[in-house]
Structures are given as C-alpha cells and as structure tokens.
C-alpha cells in the first residue's frame, strides 16, 4: 500500500510536462478552449455582422437543412442554428464551469474535512448532505423564481446547490479508507500537521477519483439545466442552451433530424474532450500512473 508515495517519474519532470507528452488530452484541451472562445465571442461576431443574430426569426423561411446561407441550417422559426448553438454554448459552458467549481471546492473540502475530523461530526455532515439532496429542487427553484424573478442566475444557483453533494459523499468515503493506511499513520507519527496530511497525502491520492467524478458532473448539470428550463424556470426564450436545443430537437427528430443531430454532436464532442482531459490530468498528476 505504501507505494502510493513512491515517485516513478524523473524527479525534474513536472506534472505539466508529463501532461503535454500525451497527445490526446492536449488536443482535447485545445478543442475545449476553441469551442469556449467561439461561444463567448459570438456577441462580438454578431456585432461585426459575421454571424446572424441568434434571435432573428424568418418565419417565411422556416426550418431548412444545412446550406451555404445557413451553415448548420435553421430551426422551426427560421433562426440560424449556428448562432443559436454558440449562444446556447455560453449558457451551457457557464453552467458546467460553475458546477465543476462548486463540486471541486465545496464538495471536495466538505468531504475531506468531514472524514478527517470523523466521529459524530462526520455523521452529522453526511446527514446534512442527505437532507439537502432530499429537498425537492423544483420547489426551491420555483420559490426562488418568485422571490427574485425569472433570472438566469437561478440556474447557476440550482446547479451550484446540487453539484457538490455526491462529490462530498464519494470524497468522504475514499478519505476514510485512506485514513487508516500505513503511510498516513507514518505521517502522523512523524508529527505532520492535519492540514499537511490533507494537502500532501489525501488530496494527491484522491485526485483520480475527483477527476473522473468531476467530468461526470458536467453532463448531469447541463441536462439538469435543460429540465429546469423545460419547466419554464431557467433560460428564457429566445435565449437557449445546448440542453434545451437537444430537447426541442428530440420533439421533431423525424421531420428535421439536424435540429437534434447537430446540437447532440457538439454536446457529445465537448463532453468527450472533457473526459479525455480529465483522464489526461489524472494520469499526469497521479504519481502512480505517471510512468505509463
């Protein structure tokens, strides 16, 4: 078990250098950066007349398949799909970023601290997670919408509220199993402080699980956003998001297949790169798998 600390790579090589050695995660990273840059620059592109306005309707035109004038086709109201895809990407990427940030900071810290303190505190902390995950999210979102008005921030609040829960639970379990390992006992015996043990022993050993679960959180919350918006509580038409576009596309998948197909491919491509990135980071920064 104590192999966890033996470093198998060259001592001068940093995790970042190891990351760059493998091509797939690097391509994935550049793809993600490209998609995000394109999505967030879409208001600028529209202002420069390089891209049609995402809310400009053309009812006479209606839905057309991809062509020269509309590279990705148009939706039922004749709105340009590419423009809508980029605008929706801004919402979906933000939702994913918020969820990952909350899961990484709140979820991981909550789980590690609960397990490290242990005993009754840990029991109480896990029961709090139980309570929060049981409360009906839909009711809370409706209530917040009533109090604060229909607002895009409601989505971020809802997503932030739920994305840390399972992460906290998983991190807590894994930490508890690390806690009784010999290398942790050795660190305690050598007088390592509690913070030091958390930072130098728990977090590096948790990194793999955290990376995999974080990449699993993102698709979940992007679809949660679609559900909340579907109830009429989140993103307001004419604005859209990838989840909503897939939802709307699935209603007309036999008549206008591109309305389902194109957003799904972009969504899946983004998530695919994200999981390759997650795996790559894990392999690079986990000292045990670093040698491969």
């Amino acid at each position, binding site marked *: *078990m104590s*192999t966890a600390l033996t470093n198998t790579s060259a001592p001068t090589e940093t995790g970042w250098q190891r990351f760059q050695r493998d091509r797939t995660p690097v391509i994935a990273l550049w793809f993600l950066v490209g998609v995000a840059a394109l999505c967030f620059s879409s208001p600028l592109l529209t202002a420069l007349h390089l891209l049609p306005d995402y809310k400009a309707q053309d009812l006479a035109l209606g839905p057309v398949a991809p062509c020269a004038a509309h590279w990705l086709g148009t939706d039922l109201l004749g709105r340009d799909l590419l423009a809508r895809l980029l605008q929706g990407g801004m919402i979906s990427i933000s939702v994913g970023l918020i969820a990952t940030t909350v899961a990484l900071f709140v979820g991981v810290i909550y789980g590690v601290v609960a397990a490290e303190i242990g005993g009754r505190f840990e029991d109480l902390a896990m029961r709090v997670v139980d309570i929060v995950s049981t409360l*009906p999210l839909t009711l809370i979102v409706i209530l917040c919408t009533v109090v604060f008005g229909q607002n895009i921030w409601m989505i971020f609040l809802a997503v932030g509220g739920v994305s840390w829960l*399972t992460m906290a639970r998983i991190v807590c379990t*894994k930490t508890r199993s690390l806690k009784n390992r010999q290398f942790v006992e050795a660190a305690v015996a050598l007088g390592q402080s509690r913070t030091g043990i958390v930072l130098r022993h728990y977090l590096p050993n948790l990194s793999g699980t955290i990376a995999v679960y974080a*990449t*699993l959180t993102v*698709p979940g919350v992007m679809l949660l956003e679609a559900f909340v918006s579907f109830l009429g509580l989140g993103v307001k038409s004419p604005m859209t998001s990838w989840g909503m576009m897939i939802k709307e596309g699935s209603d007309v998948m036999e008549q206008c297949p591109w309305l389902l197909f194109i957003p799904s491919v972009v969504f899946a491509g983004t*998530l695919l790169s994200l999981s390759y990135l997650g795996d790559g980071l894990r392999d690079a920064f986990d000292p045990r798998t670093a040698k491969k």
Partner: protein
Amino acid sequence: MFIYVLKRLAEMIPVLLVVVVATFFLAHAVPGGPFDKERPMPAEVKKQVEAYYGLDQPLHVQLGNYIGNLAHGSLGPSMKYPGWTVNQIIGARIPVSVILGSLSLLIAILVGIPIGVIAASRPNTWMDRLPMGLALIGICVPSFVFGPLLALVFSLQLGWFPPCGWGSVSHLVLPSLALGLITAAPLARLTRGELMEVYTLDYVRTARAKGVSPTRVRFVHALRNGILPVVTYLGPAAAALVSGSFVVESLFDVPGVGRLFVTAIINRDVPVILGTTLLYAVALLCLNLVADLAKAALDPRTARDRR
C-alpha cells in the same frame, strides 16, 4: 454491527423530520394553491373546501396536525383527487416504480461494472476506447432522446416490444433499458478510473506473480478494492431509480412515483408533494445505509475510525 444499524435507523427520524418540516414550508411558500383554476371558485365554496382540508388554520397548527397524522402512518387526503388518500395513491404506484427501478439497477450494475473492468485492463487500446466511447454516449445522450430512440427502433421498426403502457413483462423491457443503460455509463467510467489505480498496487502484482488467472485478479482481487466510489455512487443512484424517473415514466406512459411527484408540484397538491418527498427520503437514507454496510464489508478500513 447490529447496534450500528439500529443507531443509523434511529438517526433517520430527525433527518426525516427536518425534511418534512422544510418541504412543508417550501410547499406552502410557493404561490398558487391546489384549488386555483382558470375560473376562480366562488369565495364561499373555496372557504368551505379550505376548512375541510384544514387550510384555514395557522401554518404551525397544520404542520402539527400533519406530523401527528404521520406518526399514525397517515399521509392525509389528496387535494387534487377527492376521495383518495395519499397512502392509496402512492401505495398503488410504489410497486411499479420499485419493479422498474430494481430491474434498471440490475441492468446498470451488470453492464456498467464489467465494462469498466474490461476497459481498465487494457488501457488506451481499442478494448478501452470502444467501451468507454459507448459509455460516454450513454452519459451525453439524455433520457428524453434515448427513450424515443429505443421506442423508434425496437417498437415501431422491429415491433419487438410495446412502445408504452404497463401491465405485462414485455412492457418492462424498453423503460428499464432506457433507465438502466443511462445509469450504467457513469458506473463504467467510475469503475475504470478506480481500477486503473488499483492495478498499479503491489498486491495485484503479487497475485499475478503467484499465478492467479488474470480474470480472477481483475474481478475478485482488484475489483473489491476499486469498487468503493462506485458503491457510494450507487446509493443515491439507486434511490433515484426506485423512486421513479419523471422523464422515462412520461415517455413510456408508466404509472410510477416520479410522474406523480412532478404532477403534484404542478398541481400544488401539498400532501402528495410531502408524501412523495418523504418516500424518496426514506429510499435515499435506507439505500445509503445499505451502501455504507456494503462498503464496510468490502473494505474494513472504512468501517470505523481507529484514530
């Protein structure tokens, strides 16, 4: 062990109480009531109906009455379906959601975990990339796309199974596949990630060196150590499955609890909201307890603190 289970069961009571109280106030704080219709009810009628359900009393009295009834096992009358108690409404739907949920859970475990084990045994080859690509499709494709696709292929094109409805074994196939395969995908990814780490540990090398067959090393020696986060993930996932999925139940027209819950929120049928929330809470707490016991059995190091 026995005392630990008793302690955990006793802990459930305050947790459930907090959930009931919080949901009660949430449900009452949300504007709109069960008797709001497009044409408003005459004021006198509304007053009588509200008096019948005790809605004219102060909130804390209503809450007290509700908890009092709950202690006797009664969830109260439904406000949207007159003449039915919430116990009857939920009771009729529990078997549906539990059967569908358990079957989906079984599919998820039997498909997800072996795929993860196989993928981790040959990292970065086609035996890893292909199943993980499929799993990723399972994660990205939402149930509201996957469900109709299944119905389109296996029901409308091939005609093997009925597209929707409930009542026979063949009705179970498509909804349980839709739910099960979507849950299998994250299980496969979690299993692969954990096993990649476990395969590098000394004891796995020892087991191989002494001649244990590779299959046995993977599924018996390594899986036992790598399955902890998977089991943790399975607790809430199983609770979500057995308490019903709104989307899948709506798509396949299954009379389960998930649909009841969302309809109740839209109808502001407070007793049904409370009843279904309570059901989900009990399922979550019990299944988390089962997951914790399973983890303690699999890995004694997690059982109790030694420090």
